[in-house]
């Protein structure tokens, strides 16, 4: 197992190198440059020419890449945002915790609802619950996130006034401490329960909107997997041996059925962490997603390169964790290196 983990970690080097090359050329393939984006109507041809000359954007692209890698590797930082003029690493430090909290809340919502829903649907195969869960899943997958988000906000924030519509925290809470920038964790560490409740309330609507697609996928995969597993020989044997249905379901059906679900959860978590662009924008949630969206509009090369490279690293690491979790859940799987 250790050799497997080390090998996967070593593989990170060529993966990140490949991603950096792809990213570098992709962002430069976007039409325009930061000069045009940042100066808008005021971007005269002279100003654009001066900007490109000063910042080496007229150099051959391979030379720009060598310069980029040289400073990135030598100084071990990801550069400076063309739009905000801040260190990309500082912005990641600020925004990534917000995205992690949102992704985990969304995943918690989709797993805690999706697995029971899928399981019950399979157990009541063909019945109204099954049909109902199918219908809900279809809605979850087919309604665009921003539509769902706006709808949720309208009902629960604007009409009912139960939940906030924007941000991570009530801005009138002036004394909240944020030592880690994980606001939930910070509130727990400082035993600030009113702030904790406020932060959780800010998470509910975006987490539900963001978790709707994983919820639908997890419910469908769980249902299909349970249907497969409950017809296996070992399940029939367990039942024949006189084990109670609850024990059979818990020990034999659910545990085996959850294997493919684990993979889906891992992949979905990786995707959620890679920035929920629409959700974060609609809820003015200050995470990686809204940051990258602005970077695309601004042709902010350093943010796109550095931010996405960082997310690629996170995605690979999350999948490594999923693979390890696989072995923990299913002892039959052993990684040999």
């Amino acid at each position, binding site marked *: 197992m250790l050799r497997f983990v080390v090998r996967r970690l070593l593989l990170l080097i060529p993966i990140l190198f490949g991603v950096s090359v792809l990213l570098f050329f992709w962002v430069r393939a976007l039409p325009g440059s930061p000069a045009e984006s940042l100066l808008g109507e005021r971007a005269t041809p002279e100003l654009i020419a001066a900007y490109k000359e000063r910042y080496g954007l007229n150099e051959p692209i391979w030379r720009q890449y060598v310069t980029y890698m040289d400073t990135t590797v030598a100084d071990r930082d990801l550069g400076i945002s063309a739009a905000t*003029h801040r*260190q990309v690493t500082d912005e990641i430090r600020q925004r990534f915790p917000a995205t992690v909290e949102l992704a985990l809340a969304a995943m918690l919502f989709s797993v805690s609802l999706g697995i029971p829903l899928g399981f019950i649907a399979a157990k009541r195969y063909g019945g109204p619950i099954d049909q109902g869960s199918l219908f809900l899943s279809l809605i979850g997958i087919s309604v665009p996130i921003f539509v769902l988000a706006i709808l949720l*906000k309208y009902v629960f924030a*604007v009409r009912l006034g139960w939940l*906030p*519509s924007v941000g*991570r925290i009530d801005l*009138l809470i002036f004394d909240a401490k944020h030592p880690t920038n994980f606001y939930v964790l910070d509130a727990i560490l400082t035993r600030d329960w009113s702030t904790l409740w406020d932060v959780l309330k800010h998470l509910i609507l975006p987490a539900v909107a963001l978790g709707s697609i994983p919820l639908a996928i997890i419910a469908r995969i769980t249902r299909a997997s349970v249907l497969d597993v409950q017809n296996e020989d070992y399940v029939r044997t367990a039942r024949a041996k006189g084990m109670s249905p609850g024990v059979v379901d818990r020990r034999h059906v659910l545990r085996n059925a959850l294997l493919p679900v684990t993979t889906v959860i891992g992949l979905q978590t990786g995707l959620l962490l890679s920035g929920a662009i629409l959700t974060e924008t609609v809820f003015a949630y200050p*995470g990686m997603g809204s940051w990258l969206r602005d970077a695309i509009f601004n042709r902010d090369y350093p943010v796109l390169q550095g931010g996405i490279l960082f997310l690629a690293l996170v995605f690979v690491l999350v999948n490594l964790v999923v693979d390890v979790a696989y072995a923990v859940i299913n002892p039959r799987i052993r990684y040999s290196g």
Partner: protein
Amino acid sequence: MSPSGAAAPDTLIYAGAADPTYLDPALVSDGESFRVTKQIYESLVDFAPGTTRLVPALATSWSVARDGRTYTFKLRGGVFFHDGTAFNAAAVCANFNRWFNFSGPFQDASATYYYQAIFSGFKRNENAKLGAPLYRSCRAVGGLKAVVKLTRKNGPFVPSLVLSAFAMQSPTAMRKWGANQGTVRNGVFAPTGTYAFQHPTGTGPYMLEKWTVGESVILKKNPRYWNKKQPRLARIIIRPISDNTARVQALQTGEVFGMDLLSPPLVATVRSNSRLKVLSRPAFNVAYVTIQSAKPPMNDIRVRRAVAYGLNRQLVVNSFYAGRAQVAHQFMPPSLPGYAKDVVKYSFNPTRARQLLREAGCGPPCKIEFWYPTGVSRPYMPDPKANYEAFKASLEQSGFDVQTTSMPWRPDYVKNVNQGTAGHLNMIGWTGDYADADNFIGTFFQGDSPQFQEKNAALDKLLNAAEQEVNQAKRIRMYQQANRLIMQNLPGVPYAHSTPALGFQKRVKGYHTSPIGTDLFKTVFLGGQ
């Protein structure tokens, strides 16, 4: 009260569209940065609230010598920067000299756009495209008199000092926190000192308390502010909400008390809520159709006039601005000195347009290419496609055969418009930066403009003379004459001055909207509904 927080009657939460870039006003040119710096810093002169009339600010009075190049500013006494140091003539000169001595990356247009627009060049220009500097020297006479010498006469000099970019900053704090330190890494300039991010120090009514990027900028009351009656609130919180609908929803829920950039389709939503109100920003922009005068058949004035008669501007203004615009008859808003009431006006007249086309020997139908942008909404052009379709229909009714080209606003469309390669006609506009005709018609038509391809020696001479004239009455007459010439030559057709909207809770009182978009919060207070 916000849904979860306690009521704070001495705090205003206000929504902008984005974070500030940073808080050194000399180094930014975007409205979101100025929204914050306007509260922290003050300039020598300012606008009277809600107008473009110049009034004293840190300078109580000013005068220009007979040579037209020497300005004397008498300064307000008893004013202190947030770090406790005194504001005086030496501080004024330190600020002018700082701008003049910028070097290296600070000479980039993305860092010092407004300095370059007004002062042309630096002490040592590092780019051949920069001009000869307007600024010559500054001398402190006693504590409260600063004498600024320019290299040439310049009419826009004093009006431009309203810009937050030319606000006064504490020389001591700038030195202490490295305001003049910057670097270029992988093609991007960034200040490396902490001044612009953590220690902005002006004389303004509010001071920076905390800035959490992506979440809020919190400003607190300056206890030593020179006007003892202001500011009226203890705190201002400015939060970035980029999505238009999300801003309005936050206003509806009470999470913000006021918001800028209320898009026309959402004005009715705010108006229909009994707890909310809509404020208007005075029109300080112009939407226009550029005519590429050098490109046949537009090189014939009769065809250009046919375009002007063929654009149904009244219909567009009535249909797509939610009642928040007026038809433009020249390239600057009516509130600015230099606006001429007697320019040639072109009302929609398809018969006259067809007749002109026949006289010019171009059809009808006269084939032309007309461009519009996609993926953008500007205050002066909320729905470009709707404007375009109405214009296309009216032009076709007037004898033109219109070929459509659309492109994403950034970067393709703007680039082509600025280079003069966007068809025969294209739609764009401008929002003013400071209250001077030079910022509108001077920017568009002075010198060679690839966008308009307008070569008009008389106009160029007139605009050059107006820029250097310091007698305000004479300047106004010159700009009025320039406007008459422009509307005779028709390098384009202005069609709308829009009135941008802001949304507020009714309990927000004392808010004055600035034409240039940088509102002062020091007069704002919270009352009952």
